[in-house]
C-alpha cells in the first residue's frame, strides 16, 4: 500500500522529499539518507539519472529505501527507455513492492555526462502516465494485451508552472490529469505569485478536485545557488527579491536564510486552496529536511 496515497486520501497535508542516488554502487549512501528521512516524510522520491548524469538506478535505490521502511516514489524518465522497457520496469517495480511512480520526460541528455547518448523519447510523459494507468486499472499493456497481474501503483506526474507559455501550463496539467495522473509534484516554487495564479487556473478547470497537487520547494544554500538556478536552470523562476534577500545576509548565514525562505514558502503553500502537500527537494542536503518539516509544523507525520 502506498503511504503517500493513504495520507492524501485521508486529507492530511502530505510531505515528500527527494533522494538522489549516488554516482556509484555503494548502498550506504542511500541507507544514510533513509536514516535522515525516516519518520520525517510520507514518501521519498528517487530521481532517475537526474540532469542526465549516470547514477545508481532509481529502482535499485527505491528497493533499498523500502527495505528501511520508507515509501519510495520511483521516478522514471522516458529519455532512456522505450515503451517495452518502461512497461517492464513498472511491472518489476510493482513486483518489488514499489507503490508510487512519477512519470517524467527527463532532462535532455545534452546536459549530462553522456551527451553523445541517443535520447529515446519513444513515449512522452503524458503518454507514459496513460499507459501506466491502463496497466493498473485495466490490466493491459499498450496495444491491449492482458497482463497476468496488474501492477499496484499510485501514479504521479510533474508540472512546471514556471515554464512558458504560461497560459498553456494549465492545459498541460489538464492533459496529465486526463491521462490518469493521481498526484502532481511541481517544479521548485520561489515565485509564489505566479504559482498562485497557476493554481487559480487549475481550480477554475476543476483540476484540484481530480488530482493531488504537491508544491515543490528547494531550500537555497547560498545566494550563488539562487543566481545559478535563475540563470542556468531552464524553467526555474527565482525572483530578484529572493536573490536580494539571500545576498542581504552574510555568506555564513545564507544557508539559514535559505531554510527560512523554504519554511515560509511551505507555510504559504498550506494556505493555497487545492495544494495537498509539499515536495521538498533538498539537493544533497537531506540532513536538513527533518527540521524544515518540523519548523513548518508538519510533524509528526500521520501513522508514523
Amino acid at each position, binding site marked *: 500500500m502506498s503511504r503517500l496515497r493513504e495520507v492524501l486520501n485521508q486529507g492530511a497535508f502530505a510531505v515528500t522529499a527527494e533522494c538522489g542516488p549516488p554516482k556509484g554502487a555503494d548502498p550506504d549512501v542511500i541507507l544514510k539518507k533513509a536514516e535522515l528521512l525516516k519518520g520525517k516524510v510520507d514518501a521519498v522520491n528517487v530521481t532517475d539519472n537526474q540532469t542526465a548524469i549516470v547514477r545508481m538506478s532509481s529502482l535499485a535505490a527505491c528497493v533499498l529505501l523500502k527495505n528501511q521502511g520508507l515509501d519510495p516514489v520511483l521516478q522514471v524518465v522516458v529519455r532512456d527507455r522505450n515503451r517495452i522497457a518502461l512497461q517492464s520496469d513498472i511491472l518489476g517495480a510493482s513486483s518489488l513492492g514499489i507503490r508510487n511512480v512519477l512519470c517524467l520526460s527527463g532532462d*535532455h541528455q545534452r546536459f549530462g555526462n553522456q551527451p553523445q547518448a541517443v535520447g529515446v523519447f519513444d513515449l512522452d510523459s503524458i503518454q507514459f502516465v496513460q499507459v501506466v494507468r491502463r496497466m493498473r486499472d485495466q490490466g493491459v499493456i499498450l496495444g491491449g494485451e492482458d497482463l497476468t497481474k496488474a501492477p499496484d501503483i499510485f501514479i504521479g506526474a510533474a508540472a512546471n508552472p514556471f515554464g*512558458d*507559455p504560461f497560459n498553456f501550463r494549465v492545459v*498541460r496539467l489538464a492533459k496529465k490529469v486526463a491521462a490518469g495522473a493521481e498526484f502532481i509534484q511541481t517544479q521548485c516554487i520561489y515565485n509564489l505569485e505566479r504559482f498562485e495564479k497557476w493554481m487559480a487556473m487549475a481550480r477554475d478547470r476543476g483540476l484540484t478536485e481530480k488530482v493531488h497537487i504537491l508544491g515543490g520547494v528547494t531550500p537555497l544554500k547560498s545566494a550563488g545557488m539562487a543566481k545559478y538556478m535563475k540563470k542556468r536552470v531552464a524553467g526555474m523562476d527565482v525572483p530578484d527579491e529572493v536573490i536580494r534577500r539571500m545576498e542581504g545576509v552574510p555568506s555564513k548565514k545564507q544557508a539559514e536564510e535559505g531554510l527560512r525562505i523554504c519554511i515560509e514558502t511551505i507555510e504559504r503553500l498550506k494556505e493555497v486552496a487545492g495544494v495537498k502537500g509539499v515536495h521538498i527537494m533538498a539537493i544533497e542536503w537531506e540532513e536538513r529536511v527533518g527540521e524544515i518539516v518540523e519548523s513548518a509544523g508538519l510533524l509528526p507525520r500521520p501513522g508514523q
Partner: protein
Amino acid sequence: MITAEQKPLDEIRGTISHFRRILVLGCGSCVAECAAGGEKETGMLASALRMAAKMEGKEVLIHEKTLERQCVRDFIILLDDIVHEYDAVLSLGCGAGVQAVADMFSEIPVIPALNTEFLGETRDQGLWVENCLGGGDCMLYHFGGICPLARCSKHLLNGPCGGSVEGKCEIDPEIPCGWQLIIDRLEQHHALDRLEHVYPPKDWSKKQGGGPRKIIREDQQR
C-alpha cells in the same frame, strides 16, 4: 531536401591517401542547394586536393565530374565509360548517393566527402534548418504544419516540457521551442482546442520498425 556538410579536409585526405587516380564526384541536387556538394564545391575540393598533393610532392591524378543526381541510376550510368579509369571515387553526394554509386560499381571504393545531416529547408542564405524526420505517417495537420517530432528536442507529442522559456528550447537558447511555435500557429488558426487532446504514442514502425524502408509503385514501373 537532404542537407550535408563537407568533412574536414584532413579527414578526406586521410581516406584517399592510398589512391593514385581519384574521381571527385559531385551531385547537382540537394547537396548543391546546401552548398556542400554541387559543381562549384566539387571543383573547389578537387583543386584543394590537387594542391595539397602537389605540396607533398605526390603524383596523384584527380579529376572531377558532377552528376545531376547521384541517387538515381539513370544518371549514375553516365559514369559507365569513365569510372574504370580511377582507383576510387570521392563522392560529394549524400549518404544515399554514395551508396547508389557504390552499388553500381561495387569493384571501386566510393568514399564519402560529406557528412549527411537532415531533411530540412533553406531558411535563408547560408541557413538550413531541420524540420522533418521522415516519420512515415505525417502528423503535420494536427500541429498547424509544425512537426513536434522534428522540432521539439524531446520529440514530445504532448508538449511543451517544463524547459520552454520565452519561446526557446532548454537545450540551447538559439533553438526555438517547437511547441511554442505550434501553440502560436494554432492560435493564429483559432485551433488551440486541438491541443487539449492527448495524442497517443507514435507508431514508429512506419519509420524504422520494419527495417530499411522501400516504396513500391507498380504504376511507375516499366
